[in-house]
């Protein structure tokens, strides 16, 4: 990223931080958490102790980070090296990223930025300008992808509350600041689980590793199989509901399943993973030493903020997570897609000089679709 762009983003981020201290708080028990941050074009600073909102705000003002993180784990000595921190437990966290859903719309809004000449293009496999095949991708905000991610969050929450017995009030959902959502479970007895145990929870949530026998299949004599009922609890009921639709369909469809055989049923269960399993990123949940983006801070991949979603259904990231002001800024934009922020449409721009509100300028520069003019 160019120095002038970095300077511009830092100024914009600093103003946001200064104006929105009310949105930016330390995690609960800050003295037990590890904080970290990045600056533009620099690596990660980790193992930082922060004891209060005041200290946090001071760090934001003095360092103007591009991204700020806080551990979901709590430690006795959070500022010491990893091996000496003395792990006490960690909130259960989940990450749903639209990227992982691979929806068909992505081909229309995942832009490719040529690493050789900096050109931005869509769909083609090589840069139309210099023919290079090396590029980085970045996705523009897409309503359909956000809707898809919300749907995964709904599935996740229903598993967390129904199956895992987690109280609704202990679950918080945040917009990640880019293309997905982060979920925190606090004050639950799951805090003490280690990585291996969390991996089992992850497989549960993904509906991964389910055996046909669990749902009533008899391998030795498949025709004797009695499949679980749709009103049963947990995956038994959820699976049957998906397979049979309704109670009255069950006898007929059971016969059909049986005629198709054990392995076809097994395959069916595997295919159901994508449909009834909640598509979470396993690594995030399994890692008990992760530092995770701090709520209220800006995601430098987009210039949008990681923000609490009080009403997930109504949440609209372009409106509700966009906090940069609307001073006019002139940029050189090369943005092959249209996107919407604060209810205003922008783009596409074909290597043209345009004057746009600062929030749109920040968004495009963060995405790599523009530089200051």
């Amino acid at each position, binding site marked *: 990223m160019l120095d002038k762009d970095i300077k511009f983003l830092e100024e914009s981020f600093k103003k946001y931080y200064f104006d929105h201290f009310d949105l930016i708080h330390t995690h609960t028990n800050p003295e037990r958490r590890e904080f970290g941050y990045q600056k533009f074009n620099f690596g990660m600073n980790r193992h930082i102790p922060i004891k209060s909102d005041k200290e946090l705000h001071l760090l934001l003002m003095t360092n103007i980070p591009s991204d700020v993180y806080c551990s979901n784990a709590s430690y006795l000595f959070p500022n010491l090296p990893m091996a000496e921190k003395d792990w006490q437990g960690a909130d259960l966290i989940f990450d749903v990223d639209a990227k992982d859903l691979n929806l068909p719309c992505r081909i229309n809004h995942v832009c490719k930025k040529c690493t050789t000449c900096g050109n931005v293009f869509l769909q083609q496999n090589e840069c139309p300008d210099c023919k290079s095949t090396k590029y980085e991708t970045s996705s523009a905000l897409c309503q359909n992808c956000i809707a898809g991610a919300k749907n995964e969050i709904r599935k996740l929450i229903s598993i967390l509350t129904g199956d*895992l*017995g987690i109280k609704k009030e202990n679950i918080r959902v945040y917009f990640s600041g880019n293309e997905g959502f982060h979920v925190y479970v606090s004050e639950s*007895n799951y805090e003490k689980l280690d990585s291996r*145990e969390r991996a089992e929870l992850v*497989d*549960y949530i993904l509906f991964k590793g389910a055996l046909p*026998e669990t749902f009533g299949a008899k391998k030795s004599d498949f025709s004797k199989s009695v499949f679980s009922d749709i009103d049963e609890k*947990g995956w038994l009921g959820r699976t049957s509901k998906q397979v049979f639709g309704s109670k009255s369909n069950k006898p007929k469809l059971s016969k059909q399943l049986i005629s198709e055989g054990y392995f076809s049923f097994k395959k069916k269960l595997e295919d159901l993973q994508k449909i009834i399993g909640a598509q979470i990123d396993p690594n995030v949940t399994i890692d008990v030493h992760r530092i995770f983006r701090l709520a209220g801070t800006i995601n430098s991949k987009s210039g949008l903020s990681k923000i609490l979603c009080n009403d997930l259904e109504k949440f609209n990231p372009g409106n509700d997570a966009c906090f940069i002001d609307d001073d006019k800024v002139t940029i050189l934009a090369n943005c092959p897609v249209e996107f919407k922020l604060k209810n205003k449409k922008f783009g596409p721009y074909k290597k043209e000089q345009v004057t746009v509100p600062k929030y749109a300028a920040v968004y495009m520069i963060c995405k790599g679709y523009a530089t200051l003019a």
Partner: protein
Amino acid sequence: MSNQIITSVLKLGTEEIAKYPFLTEAGNYLKEKGFTLEQFGNDEDLRPIIEIAFQRIETAANGKIFNSDFNVKNLDVEVFSFLVAVILLKQSAMNTLIKRFSLAEARRAEKFLEKDLSDINNKAKEELAIKIIKDLFSMDIHKSDDYFVIPVVDYLKHATHFYEQEWKLVNRLVDNGNVFLTSHETVRLIRKELDNFISSKIHSANIPSIPESFKKSVEALVSLAKKFSVQTVETGESPPCIKHALDVLSKGENLPHSGRFMLATYLLNKGQTIEEIAPLFKNAPDYNEKITLYQLKHLSGVFGSGTKYACPSCDKLKSENLCFAIPECANIINPLQFGRKKIPNA
């Protein structure tokens, strides 16, 4: 919780002690009952107990379970033979026998626990079994209809030790933070811990000095142990999956994360140190010393929860296309077992 507390809290009757003799403290129990070890050598009625204790160990060593149906037998003999067996084993210090004995006794207790848990005619038995599981294995368990209900968190703590897929949480009935198990599954879940509990009981048994009359049996145990001690010899060959991974790395090609995970956990479990392993990854296209060390430390359990990661099973590696099985791979379920030959000691 000390065992005396357990016995007094549980108010065990002789029948219960006969089923779960490991709940007592060998030395104290005998003292309380007014017996000395000497009496086992001198007293006509007690002398056979040493012999029975020996048989109990021998049965276990042969992989069988001693008298798990004692309805008609003398309960005191059941208890005493266990206690004397503990004394003999401790005195012999033969680890192979202690291991076999505790596993067999664990399975014996498992049978009783399972039976007691599902004894609908005797609430007290069921409560006792539940209490044993609760107190000994800090598992919060209660009964609901025909199910035994335990919190998901407690389930995971025990079940992650199992390889079999049926123990995966996704293959369990889970609702409102609880897992629903049958009595058989409940008891199976704690077998390993029960086994550990009994063997630690033997290792920590406090036995002052044993009378002459025990010495012959102890010696007999030492020679019995020889028959069962199995020497494992490492052939030193690495399994093909590991060779392949090393090969890829040495060529500077990219090994997927799952392959690195396999290699690192394999070598860590073979006793190599982090410092020995880290350089292997130096050739990888995306090598970063700091990150590699961090990940290795994580795998070796230096951090946090301190669990050392197990090497993935052959099944898992097959599914990840990391397996390159050869005939020597037959009958193993984990690469760590490769090349381990069992040579029984004559």
